Protein backbone atom coordinates (compact mmCIF):
# COMPACT_ATOMS: atom_id res chain seq x y z
CA UNK A 1 0.00 0.00 0.00
CA UNK A 2 2.75 2.45 0.99
CA UNK A 3 4.75 1.51 -2.12
CA UNK A 4 1.72 2.18 -4.27
CA UNK A 5 1.30 5.65 -2.72
CA UNK A 6 5.00 6.43 -3.25
CA UNK A 7 4.82 5.30 -6.88
CA UNK A 8 1.69 7.40 -7.42
CA UNK A 9 3.30 10.48 -5.84
CA UNK A 10 6.44 9.99 -7.95
CA UNK A 11 4.35 9.76 -11.12
CA UNK A 12 2.49 12.95 -10.17
CA UNK A 13 5.81 14.75 -9.57
CA UNK A 14 7.13 13.56 -12.93
CA UNK A 15 3.98 14.75 -14.70
CA UNK A 16 3.96 18.15 -12.94
CA UNK A 17 7.69 18.66 -13.56
CA UNK A 18 7.28 17.85 -17.26
CA UNK A 19 4.37 20.29 -17.44
CA UNK A 20 6.45 23.00 -15.73
CA UNK A 21 9.17 22.59 -18.38
CA UNK A 22 6.76 22.24 -21.32
CA UNK A 23 4.75 25.40 -20.54
CA UNK A 24 6.54 28.33 -22.21
CA UNK A 25 4.45 31.30 -21.04
CA UNK A 26 6.03 32.67 -17.79
CA UNK A 27 2.77 33.47 -15.96
CA UNK A 28 1.41 29.98 -16.65
CA UNK A 29 4.80 28.56 -15.75
CA UNK A 30 4.41 30.08 -12.28
CA UNK A 31 1.15 28.20 -11.88
CA UNK A 32 2.77 24.97 -13.12
CA UNK A 33 5.64 25.55 -10.67
CA UNK A 34 3.13 25.95 -7.86
CA UNK A 35 1.46 22.67 -8.85
CA UNK A 36 4.87 20.98 -8.93
CA UNK A 37 5.44 22.30 -5.40
CA UNK A 38 2.17 20.74 -4.28
CA UNK A 39 2.99 17.34 -5.77
CA UNK A 40 6.47 17.44 -4.20
CA UNK A 41 4.81 18.24 -0.85
CA UNK A 42 2.65 15.16 -1.35
CA UNK A 43 5.72 13.03 -2.16
CA UNK A 44 7.62 14.22 0.94
CA UNK A 45 4.57 13.58 3.13
CA UNK A 46 4.21 10.05 1.75
CA UNK A 47 7.94 9.48 2.37
CA UNK A 48 7.35 10.56 6.03
CA UNK A 49 9.36 13.77 5.83
CA UNK A 50 6.85 16.34 7.14
CA UNK A 51 9.52 18.95 7.91
CA UNK A 52 10.70 19.07 4.32
CA UNK A 53 7.09 18.90 3.10
CA UNK A 54 6.24 22.03 5.10
CA UNK A 55 9.22 23.94 3.68
CA UNK A 56 8.31 22.81 0.19
CA UNK A 57 4.70 23.86 0.63
CA UNK A 58 5.61 27.32 1.93
CA UNK A 59 8.48 28.11 -0.44
CA UNK A 60 7.90 25.96 -3.51
CA UNK A 61 4.18 26.36 -3.98
CA UNK A 62 3.61 29.86 -2.55
CA UNK A 63 6.70 32.06 -2.39
CA UNK A 64 8.60 31.20 -5.59
CA UNK A 65 5.57 31.35 -7.94
CA UNK A 66 4.62 34.68 -6.35
CA UNK A 67 8.09 36.11 -7.01
CA UNK A 68 7.90 34.85 -10.61
CA UNK A 69 4.46 36.42 -11.09
CA UNK A 70 5.63 39.78 -9.69
CA UNK A 71 8.67 39.77 -12.00
CA UNK A 72 6.44 38.95 -14.99
CA UNK A 73 4.12 41.82 -14.10
CA UNK A 74 7.00 44.26 -13.87
CA UNK A 75 8.50 43.12 -17.20
CA UNK A 76 5.10 43.29 -18.95
CA UNK A 77 4.32 46.76 -17.66
CA UNK A 78 7.71 47.91 -18.86
CA UNK A 79 7.28 46.59 -22.40
CA UNK A 80 3.70 47.95 -22.55
CA UNK A 81 4.95 51.41 -21.58
CA UNK A 82 7.66 51.18 -24.20
CA UNK A 83 5.17 50.28 -26.94
CA UNK A 84 2.97 53.20 -25.85
CA UNK A 85 5.92 55.60 -25.94
CA UNK A 86 6.85 54.45 -29.44
CA UNK A 87 3.29 54.92 -30.68
CA UNK A 88 3.22 58.46 -29.27
CA UNK A 89 6.53 59.21 -30.97
CA UNK A 90 5.13 58.00 -34.28
CA UNK A 91 1.95 60.08 -34.01
CA UNK A 92 3.74 63.31 -33.16
CA UNK A 93 5.42 64.36 -36.47
Amino acid at each position, binding site marked *: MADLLIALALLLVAAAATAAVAVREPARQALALSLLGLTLTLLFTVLQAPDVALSQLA*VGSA*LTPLLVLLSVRKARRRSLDRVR*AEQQAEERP
Partner: protein
Amino acid sequence: MNRRQRLWVLLLGLAGVAALLVAAAFRLPTFGSDFHPYGDRAVHEALARHTANAIAAVNFDQRAFDTLGEESILFGAVLGTVVLLRQARDEHQVTPAPARVAAPVRRYALVLLPVTLVTGLYIVAHGQLTPGGGFQGGVVAATALHLLYIAVDYRALERIRPLGLFEVGDAVGEAAYLITGAAGLLAGTAYLTNALPLGTLDSLASGGTVPLLNAAIGMEVACAVVVLLARFLDQAVEIEEEGDRS
Protein backbone atom coordinates in the same frame (compact mmCIF):
# COMPACT_ATOMS: atom_id res chain seq x y z
CA MET B 1 42.50 23.40 -27.56
CA ASN B 2 39.92 23.13 -30.29
CA ARG B 3 36.25 22.35 -29.89
CA ARG B 4 36.67 18.61 -30.50
CA GLN B 5 39.37 18.20 -27.87
CA ARG B 6 37.33 20.12 -25.31
CA LEU B 7 34.37 17.85 -25.99
CA TRP B 8 36.54 14.80 -25.30
CA VAL B 9 37.76 16.29 -22.00
CA LEU B 10 34.13 16.96 -21.03
CA LEU B 11 33.09 13.40 -21.96
CA LEU B 12 35.99 11.97 -19.93
CA GLY B 13 34.94 14.00 -16.88
CA LEU B 14 31.28 13.09 -17.25
CA ALA B 15 32.14 9.38 -17.60
CA GLY B 16 34.23 9.56 -14.41
CA VAL B 17 31.44 11.24 -12.42
CA ALA B 18 28.86 8.77 -13.79
CA ALA B 19 31.03 5.77 -12.84
CA LEU B 20 31.56 7.11 -9.30
CA LEU B 21 27.84 7.88 -8.85
CA VAL B 22 26.78 4.41 -10.01
CA ALA B 23 29.40 2.76 -7.78
CA ALA B 24 28.20 4.84 -4.80
CA ALA B 25 24.54 4.07 -5.51
CA PHE B 26 25.23 0.31 -5.36
CA ARG B 27 26.67 0.68 -1.84
CA LEU B 28 23.62 2.56 -0.53
CA PRO B 29 21.18 0.82 1.83
CA THR B 30 18.19 -0.35 -0.24
CA PHE B 31 15.17 1.97 -0.48
CA GLY B 32 12.60 1.47 2.28
CA SER B 33 14.67 -1.01 4.30
CA ASP B 34 14.95 -1.10 8.10
CA PHE B 35 18.68 -0.39 8.11
CA HIS B 36 19.29 3.32 8.89
CA PRO B 37 22.76 3.70 10.44
CA TYR B 38 22.73 7.51 10.34
CA GLY B 39 19.06 7.85 11.33
CA ASP B 40 19.46 5.58 14.37
CA ARG B 41 22.43 7.57 15.66
CA ALA B 42 20.70 10.92 15.02
CA VAL B 43 17.52 9.85 16.86
CA HIS B 44 19.60 8.53 19.75
CA GLU B 45 21.44 11.85 20.04
CA ALA B 46 18.18 13.81 19.72
CA LEU B 47 16.54 11.91 22.58
CA ALA B 48 19.69 12.29 24.69
CA ARG B 49 19.25 16.09 24.35
CA HIS B 50 15.50 15.88 25.16
CA THR B 51 14.45 17.08 21.68
CA ALA B 52 11.29 15.28 20.52
CA ASN B 53 11.60 16.35 16.87
CA ALA B 54 14.75 14.58 15.71
CA ILE B 55 14.92 16.75 12.56
CA ALA B 56 15.10 19.88 14.70
CA ALA B 57 17.85 18.24 16.77
CA VAL B 58 19.85 17.57 13.59
CA ASN B 59 19.29 21.07 12.21
CA PHE B 60 19.80 23.14 15.35
CA ASP B 61 21.99 20.96 17.57
CA GLN B 62 24.03 18.30 15.77
CA ARG B 63 24.39 20.33 12.57
CA ALA B 64 23.73 23.81 13.96
CA PHE B 65 26.76 25.19 12.14
CA ASP B 66 25.32 24.11 8.77
CA THR B 67 22.10 25.95 9.61
CA LEU B 68 24.13 29.07 10.45
CA GLY B 69 25.53 28.87 6.92
CA GLU B 70 22.07 28.47 5.38
CA GLU B 71 20.68 31.36 7.39
CA SER B 72 23.59 33.55 6.30
CA ILE B 73 22.92 32.62 2.65
CA LEU B 74 19.33 33.84 2.98
CA PHE B 75 20.49 36.98 4.79
CA GLY B 76 23.03 37.73 2.07
CA ALA B 77 20.56 36.98 -0.72
CA VAL B 78 17.95 39.36 0.72
CA LEU B 79 20.63 42.03 1.22
CA GLY B 80 21.57 41.65 -2.45
CA THR B 81 17.93 41.94 -3.52
CA VAL B 82 17.47 45.10 -1.45
CA VAL B 83 20.47 46.67 -3.18
CA LEU B 84 19.52 45.53 -6.70
CA LEU B 85 15.81 46.42 -6.53
CA ARG B 86 16.17 49.82 -4.85
CA GLN B 87 14.67 52.83 -6.54
CA ALA B 88 17.26 54.01 -9.06
CA ARG B 89 17.89 57.62 -10.07
CA ASP B 90 15.93 57.34 -13.34
CA GLU B 91 12.88 55.84 -11.61
CA HIS B 92 10.09 57.44 -9.65
CA GLN B 93 7.40 56.23 -7.31
CA VAL B 94 3.70 56.37 -8.08
CA THR B 95 0.89 55.82 -5.61
CA PRO B 96 -1.06 52.73 -6.63
CA ALA B 97 -4.77 53.33 -7.08
CA PRO B 98 -7.05 51.64 -4.55
CA ALA B 99 -8.39 48.43 -6.04
CA ARG B 100 -11.87 46.98 -5.90
CA VAL B 101 -11.93 43.59 -4.15
CA ALA B 102 -14.80 41.12 -4.44
CA ALA B 103 -16.59 40.77 -1.10
CA PRO B 104 -16.08 36.99 -0.69
CA VAL B 105 -12.35 37.33 -1.42
CA ARG B 106 -12.07 40.13 1.12
CA ARG B 107 -13.93 38.18 3.81
CA TYR B 108 -11.95 35.00 3.18
CA ALA B 109 -8.57 36.74 3.27
CA LEU B 110 -9.41 38.79 6.37
CA VAL B 111 -10.56 35.69 8.29
CA LEU B 112 -7.52 33.72 7.16
CA LEU B 113 -4.97 36.41 8.05
CA PRO B 114 -4.98 35.97 11.87
CA VAL B 115 -5.36 32.18 11.53
CA THR B 116 -2.31 31.97 9.24
CA LEU B 117 -0.28 34.29 11.45
CA VAL B 118 -0.98 32.20 14.58
CA THR B 119 -0.26 29.00 12.64
CA GLY B 120 3.12 30.39 11.59
CA LEU B 121 4.03 31.43 15.15
CA TYR B 122 2.83 28.03 16.44
CA ILE B 123 5.06 26.21 13.95
CA VAL B 124 8.05 28.31 15.08
CA ALA B 125 7.36 27.79 18.80
CA HIS B 126 6.80 24.02 18.50
CA GLY B 127 9.78 23.37 16.21
CA GLN B 128 11.52 21.21 18.83
CA LEU B 129 8.39 19.06 19.37
CA THR B 130 6.51 18.67 16.09
CA PRO B 131 7.38 18.93 12.38
CA GLY B 132 8.27 22.44 11.34
CA GLY B 133 10.48 25.05 12.92
CA GLY B 134 11.81 28.54 12.45
CA PHE B 135 12.17 28.37 8.69
CA GLN B 136 8.76 26.90 7.85
CA GLY B 137 6.91 28.95 10.48
CA GLY B 138 8.72 32.12 9.47
CA VAL B 139 7.64 31.80 5.85
CA VAL B 140 4.03 31.06 6.87
CA ALA B 141 3.91 34.07 9.22
CA ALA B 142 5.40 36.34 6.56
CA THR B 143 2.94 35.25 3.87
CA ALA B 144 0.08 35.80 6.36
CA LEU B 145 0.73 39.56 6.32
CA HIS B 146 0.41 39.59 2.53
CA LEU B 147 -3.16 38.34 2.74
CA LEU B 148 -3.93 42.01 3.48
CA TYR B 149 -2.76 42.86 -0.05
CA ILE B 150 -5.27 40.33 -1.38
CA ALA B 151 -8.05 41.46 0.97
CA VAL B 152 -7.66 45.24 0.65
CA ASP B 153 -4.87 46.78 -1.45
CA TYR B 154 -1.20 47.64 -1.46
CA ARG B 155 -1.53 50.79 0.62
CA ALA B 156 -3.18 48.83 3.44
CA LEU B 157 -0.30 46.36 3.40
CA GLU B 158 2.23 49.21 3.49
CA ARG B 159 0.54 50.68 6.54
CA ILE B 160 1.01 47.55 8.68
CA ARG B 161 4.46 46.86 7.26
CA PRO B 162 7.06 49.33 8.53
CA LEU B 163 9.85 48.11 6.27
CA GLY B 164 12.67 49.63 8.32
CA LEU B 165 11.62 47.62 11.38
CA PHE B 166 11.53 44.41 9.35
CA GLU B 167 15.00 45.11 7.97
CA VAL B 168 16.26 45.56 11.54
CA GLY B 169 14.41 42.36 12.56
CA ASP B 170 16.18 40.46 9.80
CA ALA B 171 19.57 41.54 11.12
CA VAL B 172 18.56 40.95 14.77
CA GLY B 173 17.47 37.38 13.95
CA GLU B 174 20.79 36.69 12.26
CA ALA B 175 22.69 38.23 15.19
CA ALA B 176 20.63 36.29 17.76
CA TYR B 177 21.71 33.01 16.16
CA LEU B 178 25.38 34.04 16.27
CA ILE B 179 25.12 35.18 19.89
CA THR B 180 23.23 32.06 21.03
CA GLY B 181 26.05 30.07 19.45
CA ALA B 182 28.56 32.06 21.46
CA ALA B 183 26.75 30.96 24.65
CA GLY B 184 28.49 27.61 24.14
CA LEU B 185 31.86 29.38 24.31
CA LEU B 186 30.89 31.05 27.61
CA ALA B 187 29.97 27.62 29.02
CA GLY B 188 33.50 26.49 28.20
CA THR B 189 32.66 24.25 25.23
CA ALA B 190 32.69 24.68 21.46
CA TYR B 191 30.75 27.25 19.40
CA LEU B 192 27.03 26.37 18.98
CA THR B 193 27.23 23.51 21.51
CA ASN B 194 23.89 22.85 23.22
CA ALA B 195 24.99 24.00 26.69
CA LEU B 196 21.65 25.14 28.17
CA PRO B 197 19.54 23.05 30.62
CA LEU B 198 17.72 20.43 28.53
CA GLY B 199 14.30 20.48 30.26
CA THR B 200 11.70 17.69 30.13
CA LEU B 201 11.29 15.76 26.89
CA ASP B 202 8.15 16.72 24.97
CA SER B 203 7.53 19.99 26.82
CA LEU B 204 7.68 23.45 25.22
CA ALA B 205 10.86 24.39 27.12
CA SER B 206 12.95 21.37 26.13
CA GLY B 207 15.96 20.84 23.91
CA GLY B 208 18.26 23.49 25.40
CA THR B 209 19.29 25.94 22.67
CA VAL B 210 17.06 24.33 20.00
CA PRO B 211 13.93 26.47 20.69
CA LEU B 212 16.07 29.62 21.01
CA LEU B 213 17.80 29.01 17.68
CA ASN B 214 14.42 28.18 16.18
CA ALA B 215 13.03 31.51 17.35
CA ALA B 216 16.07 33.35 15.94
CA ILE B 217 15.65 31.63 12.57
CA GLY B 218 11.90 32.25 12.65
CA MET B 219 12.44 35.98 13.17
CA GLU B 220 15.15 36.18 10.52
CA VAL B 221 13.18 34.23 7.91
CA ALA B 222 9.87 36.02 8.52
CA CYS B 223 11.52 39.45 8.27
CA ALA B 224 13.63 38.38 5.28
CA VAL B 225 10.58 37.14 3.34
CA VAL B 226 8.63 40.33 4.14
CA VAL B 227 11.55 42.51 2.97
CA LEU B 228 12.09 40.35 -0.14
CA LEU B 229 8.42 40.45 -1.14
CA ALA B 230 8.25 44.18 -0.36
CA ARG B 231 11.07 44.89 -2.82
CA PHE B 232 9.43 42.79 -5.52
CA LEU B 233 5.99 44.34 -4.85
CA ASP B 234 7.46 47.87 -4.91
CA GLN B 235 8.97 47.18 -8.30
CA ALA B 236 5.82 45.56 -9.65
CA VAL B 237 3.32 48.08 -8.25
CA GLU B 238 4.93 51.40 -7.38
CA ILE B 239 8.23 52.09 -9.11
CA GLU B 240 8.23 53.34 -12.69
CA GLU B 241 10.95 54.36 -15.07
CA GLU B 242 11.38 58.04 -15.82
CA GLY B 243 9.31 59.02 -18.85
CA ASP B 244 6.65 56.33 -18.31
CA ARG B 245 3.09 57.66 -18.56
CA SER B 246 4.34 61.24 -18.72
